[in-house]
């Protein structure tokens, strides 16, 4: 039985740890896992804790949508289809986990990037996949 896909059903996250709520009024968020035994925090789901080796099911946590810029690089040469130059970065989230992302909303020049600057999560559609779904990615921009 065929069903016309609703807007929510055709939005797919680029990575599994980016959660897109079914309710479009709710913002997408990053999913984390926290080890019950040692507190180490990871992006997405984990089979085990690579810090303390615990195989206890982890606590799933909704990660903050704000973080701090730890480090960056300005990338001028990339795989085909990637517009350059762009800012590749590592953002530290308050839950004790870091995420790899682009920094948007700023000219890609080291002068514009301050270590520790507050940044916030944004999401956008970047591509359409083979089945016609919108692929949603995330980035961070100066807060």
């Amino acid at each position, binding site marked *: 039985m065929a069903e016309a896909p609703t807007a929510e059903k055709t939005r797919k996250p*680029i*990575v599994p740890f980016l959660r897109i709520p079914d309710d479009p009024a709710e913002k997408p968020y990053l999913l984390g896992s926290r080890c019950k035994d040692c507190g*180490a925090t*990871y*992006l997405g789901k984990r089979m085990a804790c*690579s*810090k303390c080796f615990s195989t206890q099911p982890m606590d799933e946590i909704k990660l903050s949508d704000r973080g701090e810029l*730890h*480090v*960056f*690089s*300005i*990338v*001028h*040469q*990339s*795989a085909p*289809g*990637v*517009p*350059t*130059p*762009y800012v*590749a*970065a*590592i953002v*530290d989230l308050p839950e*004790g*986990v*870091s*995420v*790899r*992302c*682009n920094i948007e909303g700023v000219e890609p020049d*080291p002068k514009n990037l301050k*270590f520790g600057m507050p940044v916030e999560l944004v999401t956008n559609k*970047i*591509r*359409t*996949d*083979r089945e016609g779904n919108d*692929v949603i*990615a*995330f*980035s961070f921009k100066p807060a």
Partner: protein
Amino acid sequence: MRDVAIIGVGMIKFGRYPEKTVPELAAQAALLALKDAGADMKDIELLTSGNLYQSNAMVGQRILQIIGQTGIPVVNVSNACATGSTAFREAYMAVASGAYDVAMAIGSEQMGKMGLLGGGGTGGDPAYSTEGVLGSGLMPAVFGMAGVEHMRKYGTTMEQFAKVSVKNHKHSMHNPYSQYQVEVGLEDVLNARVVAWPNTLYMCCPTGDGAAAAIVCSMEKAKQFTSKPIKVSASVLTSDPWTQRDLTMPDINTLTRNAAKEAYEKSGVGPEDLDLIELHDCFATAELLHYENLGICGEGEAGRMIDEGQTYIGGKIPVNASGGLLSKGHPLGATGVANICEVVWHLRGEAGGRQVEDAKVGLAHVIGLGSACTIHVLEKV
């Protein structure tokens, strides 16, 4: 574990050889090492072959099919950029354990144009590729960010990183095995196009083809082959231990420090005793970080070390007298054996115009992202 010596080494000039096959490149290096050792294939009891891009294609066996099908055990090894040095370590361990008396390690690579950007696809719908969308996991950005972290912690400047390229290119002028033998000035390096800030074109190692080989032997048997055996005083391999950001931002420092500590303990040699170091300068930023990781200077002092020229040939501790990966090139599987060849030549007094005076103890370091770190301490006996 008994003492092991290197009795023969050989490498080909790194460059581009599209008309040759990988086993042919490797065989050339192997024949040079055998000649250097005064040995032939009947002496070799085990072969370890390090090669990445053809890791599923039995490169080791195909080398023997060119130079000698003796039916010996062959292990094909891969460990990212530490492939060659891991192959060397496996040969070393086989002899140190007493199971074999003589073993050969050969590292080889033919990279075409793919280089460090290529290899490993999304394995599915390319719409889900994260490269350039969720930051970058490729080597130029990874090492760019590692350098930026050093800038953040210590105020290291782009100029200081660029000086690494100036030094290594100067050193390469005396290394006939180097892919590039071109001097570059600081302004040339700074004005070259940026690949991933702060690394410009001359601060990134070139891709290319190459091969290197080393033959190890029990120390007692070594005298049958050579009057200049070089002792392997430490052979260490580490992987990346859990650190806070490692899964997102590869930590090139902790596993190197762990390997260095173990190598210094095992060899009884300290960083102050080293006469030369061949370290993994895949990008100029990496070299300065490794000065501190290997303990040749204090935390945050690497910038000052390069400013003061302490790591030039003739300086306090020559680093990358060969010209490093920045000049020599980085045929992935070959590098880890090539820097062992280089240290051996200096310890034997055979390094020609780039010879480090009176070299007695050297260190060879490689790091492969993902991650693996090898450190070898070699000594003149």
